[in-house]
């Protein structure tokens, strides 16, 4: 049997399938960066135009204000759990009064932004993908294009900006609640002394740590906004397609947060060492 162009020999079929998957993956990856560049390109226009502020404020309310309670709760529990986990070891070693410093630095620089990012990816990213995905499958995005509106500017940029600008503020809330939560467990459950708790926290946790946490969360917020909007814009296949897009959006955002966290930690450590030298908790 002769195999003409377009037909694949059965033995080569798995290789062809793999090739197809890689090509599709690369195409989607490239498309994501084009989409991201366009979204970012429209940001100054959106920020500079009072007509656009209404759109952005609506998103800021949905993404920021409505996410605040759940993120504060997340932060509080993270702080509390860290004290529960660390108390035994620290008190046995005689360093119980330093526990607050360790916990709060972890919360400010690492766990606060990462867990806030993950919560945002679940709560906000999923909702954005579902909303835009539904708009796509019901032809609303096509309708915008036919009316001369640029869908990326009109839909993606306000959502991206709201995620980018509000994620650090939400992370700050989560950090604050983490600090309060850890202190409550430390002082009222384990009976630790509050004065050294706050003293070592103040002397150990630097503005640098808080700043690093907020910078990270800005990257996480931007990534969540871009990934979830891109997924929404490329949703196909009705209700099932919207559901699958939401799942994919969360998974990819989650992986992006962890990957960005690694890269930003490496950069941050390098910059800190260059500016201030090594640091020690003890």
């Amino acid at each position, binding site marked *: 049997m002769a195999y003409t162009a377009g037909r694949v020999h059965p033995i080569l079929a798995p290789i062809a399938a793999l090739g197809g998957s890689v090509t599709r993956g690369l195409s989607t990856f490239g498309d994501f960066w084009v989409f991201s560049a366009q979204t970012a390109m429209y940001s100054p226009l959106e920020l500079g135009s009072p007509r656009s502020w209404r759109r952005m404020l609506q998103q800021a309310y949905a993404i920021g204000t409505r996410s605040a309670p759940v993120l504060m709760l997340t932060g509080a529990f993270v702080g509390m759990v860290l004290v529960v986990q660390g108390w035994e070891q620290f008190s046995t070693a005689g360093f119980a009064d330093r526990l607050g410093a360790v916990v709060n630095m972890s919360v400010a620089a690492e766990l606060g932004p990462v867990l806030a990012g993950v919560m945002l990816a679940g709560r906000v990213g999923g909702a954005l993908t579902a909303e835009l995905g539904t708009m796509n499958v*019901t*032809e609303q995005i*096509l309708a915008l294009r036919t009316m*001369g509106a640029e869908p990326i500017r009109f839909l993606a940029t306000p959502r991206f900006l709201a995620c980018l600008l509000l994620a650090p503020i939400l992370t700050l809330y989560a950090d604050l609640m983490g600090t309060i939560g850890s202190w409550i467990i430390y002082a009222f459950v384990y009976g630790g002394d509050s004065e050294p708790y706050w003293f070592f926290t103040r002397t150990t946790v630097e503005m640098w740590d808080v700043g690093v946490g907020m910078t990270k969360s800005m990257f996480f917020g931007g990534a969540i906004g871009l990934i979830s909007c891109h997924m929404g814009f490329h949703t196909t296949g009705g209700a099932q397609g919207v559901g699958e897009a939401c799942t994919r959006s969360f998974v990819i955002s989650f992986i992006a947060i962890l990957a960005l966290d690694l890269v930003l930690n490496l950069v941050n450590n390098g910059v800190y060492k260059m500016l201030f030298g090594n640091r020690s908790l003890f």
Partner: protein
Amino acid sequence: MNDATRNSSLAVPDVTGAERAADGANAGPIIQFKDVHKAFGPKVVLAGVTADIQRRKNTVIIGKSGTGKSVLLKHIVGLLQPDAGEVWFDGQRVDTLSERSLTPIRRRVSFVFQLNALFDSMSVGENIAFPMAQNPRGRRAGRKRINEMVSECLGLVGLAGYESKNPAELSGGEKKRVALARAIAMDPPPDVILYDEPTTGLDPQRSDSINKLIRRLQDTTHATGIIVTHDMRSAAEVGDRILMLNEGRIVADGTPDEIMNSSDDRVRRFVQGEADPDETPG
């Protein structure tokens, strides 16, 4: 149809249908498809469509589901690009234009989508005002004028007073009417209105009401109408001319009477709703 719909004074245009009707200078076809091919992966949808769409007439495109009727419609406003062939709009080639260059053409064309594509996050009034608000000329006219036009358009489709309702509160027929109102609410009014399956999902009475409305809009605005449908009753009622698409090509072109009495087996079967022998189970 209620009184408001029967009232024939369309106050929307200031470049009016009457002016358009009197304008004999542009007597040629407003839209031309020249050997248009389009495939999605291995599926060939359009296999060399060549057709001219005459000005100020309602042209209906009929054909079985999946024969590329909606795909053809989307080529007119550059929502899709052909793999080969040319699409022309009023003497200008469309398929080579960039998204930005398409904007002036899109401002002359209205699209009534199959699923209506009303924006869920906006009220009925905001939906109808949207195309005008996107147009610099509409913006210059001011909020008051836009609100007047919204009321006039809603009155024309028999939904006076529906401005503050949300699309979710409307029935299928009402949503379709709002979509029609949005299609004509342009300043200047549209030269071409594209209707994608305007009666799909509606009961016979509501379908009849939509057909009458389409016919009346054409009579009043003298806009060119292109209606994609597989509803033969609708095609006969609204069409001045009918094109039939089959297996990616135009296989019939004539007046409603000519199509209804066609001796071509493919056309006859479609008109009479008979299954193709090769598609009959068993």
